[in-house]
């Protein structure tokens, strides 16, 4: 047999074959041959039921995290809100999960599934908390684990937060393969899948996404038990879209009708694959650099069809400047006595602003927290920003320029979210769909599918298609 070629183009050419072997899902079963695919069938046939997932997660100490009411932050919001406004703010303390974040839910399902299918190890491509989550679950199940991270710029300078995540993965027994900046991380990832024959514990498989459904379901059950009703608004930090998708699906399964709002840190203007810009980012996730492209085109992930499809599920999408998130993280420590890591605080800063739109008897919940520590705390994040020439000062955060400055609000009244035009993103998704599948005349099934994808009606989709063609 001829030896396999390992240059970039040859390896990328073997992508479909490597994926089928390493994920164990034949995605072609759900395809229509055009734009449309059967999303719910994919979730049904390859995922787990809610009860099964709860059993899997609770058996490895994942889930059932507490809801904490942030009374002092609520009081602060009411100080600056219009009279009678300022909803009660809560957080779901997902940092209590074994690996320190909600990602344990996604990992619990993926690793359980890998074990059931007889894989000897799991591989995941992530610079985030998901790496530690997979490492933690692999340790519990006695599987080997490799985490592939984008970590350093070309000078070998690492993002402190990612360096800490590498340490945690290694502490939990994983091998960590670190790479410099660039989308070819996926190339190395494919090579490793081929070499090891491990399971691809992708963030975007049906089992991974469905793993977050328990989070949404728990929120509803916990609120009903303690406060007699569902919360009015759930805020999710949005990057790849899995957190929001899974949470909303869980809320739907509970019969909850709360509004779900996505929130991302505004990093507009910074190129995600740029070596120069890499260390000018003070957030490694939960930012617009992931949130925008993954919402307007979910199928850019490491699986053929992503189970994370946030535009289907978000009622609103807001951005928040970096300075506001840092400010709110400090408020959480000094007013609530809680030190928590960066990601969930994006949604928290957004919730602080959104709460001021709602009456005082309403309840708004931030659905995650994460662990903090060296590298991941606002102290090293801001210190690293200063080292990279980012100016930090007090002022009006709406004037912040990502990569140049971080503007801490002069006053908490200046913490304001900015609305993302969802219809613009919906149009972008429809445009991408027509381009990617090279379709000039979408079928009725395609139109229905795109209506579901964009959470709008078929008339809207037809109108957009007419504008585009």
């Amino acid at each position, binding site marked *: 047999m001829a030896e396999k070629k390992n240059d970039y183009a040859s390896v990328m050419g073997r992508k479909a074959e490597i994926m089928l072997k390493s994920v164990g899902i034949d995605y072609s079963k759900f395809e229509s041959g055009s734009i449309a695919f059967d999303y719910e069938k994919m979730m049904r046939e390859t995922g787990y039921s809610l009860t099964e997932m709860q059993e899997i997660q609770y058996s490895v100490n994942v889930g059932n995290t507490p809801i904490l009411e942030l009374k002092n932050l609520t009081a602060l919001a009411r100080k600056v809100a219009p009279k009678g406004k300022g909803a009660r703010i809560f957080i779901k303390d997902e940092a209590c999960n074994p690996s320190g974040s909600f990602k344990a839910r996604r990992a619990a399902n993926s690793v359980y599934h890998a074990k059931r299918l007889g894989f000897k190890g799991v591989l995941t491509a992530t610079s985030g908390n998901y790496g530690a989550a997979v490492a933690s679950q692999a340790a519990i199940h006695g599987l080997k684990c490799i985490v592939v991270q984008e970590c350093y710029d070309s000078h070998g300078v690492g993002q402190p937060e990612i360096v800490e995540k590498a340490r945690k993965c290694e502490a939990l027994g994983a091998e960590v393969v670190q790479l410099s900046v660039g989308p070819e991380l996926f190339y190395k990832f494919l090579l490793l899948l081929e070499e*090891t024959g491990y399971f691809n514990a992708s963030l975007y498989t049906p089992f991974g996404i469905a793993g977050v459904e328990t989070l949404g379901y728990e929120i509803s059950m916990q609120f009903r038990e303690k406060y007699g009703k569902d919360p009015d608004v759930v805020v999710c930090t949005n990057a790849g879209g899995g957190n929001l998708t899974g949470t909303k699906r869980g809320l739907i399964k509970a019969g909850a009708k709360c509004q779900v709002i996505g929130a991302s840190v505004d990093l507009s203007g910074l190129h995600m694959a*740029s070596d120069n810009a890499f260390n000018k980012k003070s957030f490694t996730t939960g930012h617009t650099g992931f949130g925008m492209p993954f919402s307007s085109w979910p199928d850019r992930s490491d699986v053929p069809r992503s189970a994370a499809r946030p535009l289907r599920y978000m009622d609103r999408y807001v951005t928040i400047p970096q300075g506001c998130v840092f400010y709110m993280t400090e408020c959480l420590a000094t007013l609530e006595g809680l030190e928590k890591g960066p990601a969930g605080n994006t949604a928290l800063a957004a919730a602080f602003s959104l709460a001021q739109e709602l009456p005082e008897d309403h309840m708004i919940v931030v659905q995650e927290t994460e662990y903090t520590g060296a590298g991941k705390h606002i102290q090293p994040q801001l210190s690293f920003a200063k080292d990279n020439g980012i100016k930090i000062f007090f002022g009006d955060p709406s004037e912040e320029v990502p990569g140049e400055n971080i503007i801490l609000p002069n006053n908490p009244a200046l913490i304001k979210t900015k609305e993302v035009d969802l219809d613009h993103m919906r149009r972008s998704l429809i445009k991408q769909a027509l381009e990617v599948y090279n379709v000039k005349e979408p079928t009725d099934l395609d139109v229905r599918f795109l209506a579901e994808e964009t959470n709008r009606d078929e008339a809207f989709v037809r109108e957009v298609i007419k504008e585009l063609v």
Partner: protein
Amino acid sequence: MIEKNSWVRIRKVILTPEERAPQVPDDTKKVPLEMWTKGFLLEDAKIGDEVTVETVTGRRETGKLIEVNPAYNHSFGNFIPELLQIDKQVRQLLEGGE
């Protein structure tokens, strides 16, 4: 001399600038895609040598030997005094909490 079986860190070029993906931005295309990983050294070697290691999953990787018993040097960074101003401001606004 670094002894066989020592825990070490290696660095390796995965793709040279010419081999990089077409969609990579210009500044990134000027530099190689590099990899760092850790493992047990299979033969005695010196810093800077091309070596082979066995990783914790039992895989073999080759690369340039750069560190023995690689340390975690990330920290809490330099102190950021602005955080104290935030504390003072919000505590004053709430006048000692609810």
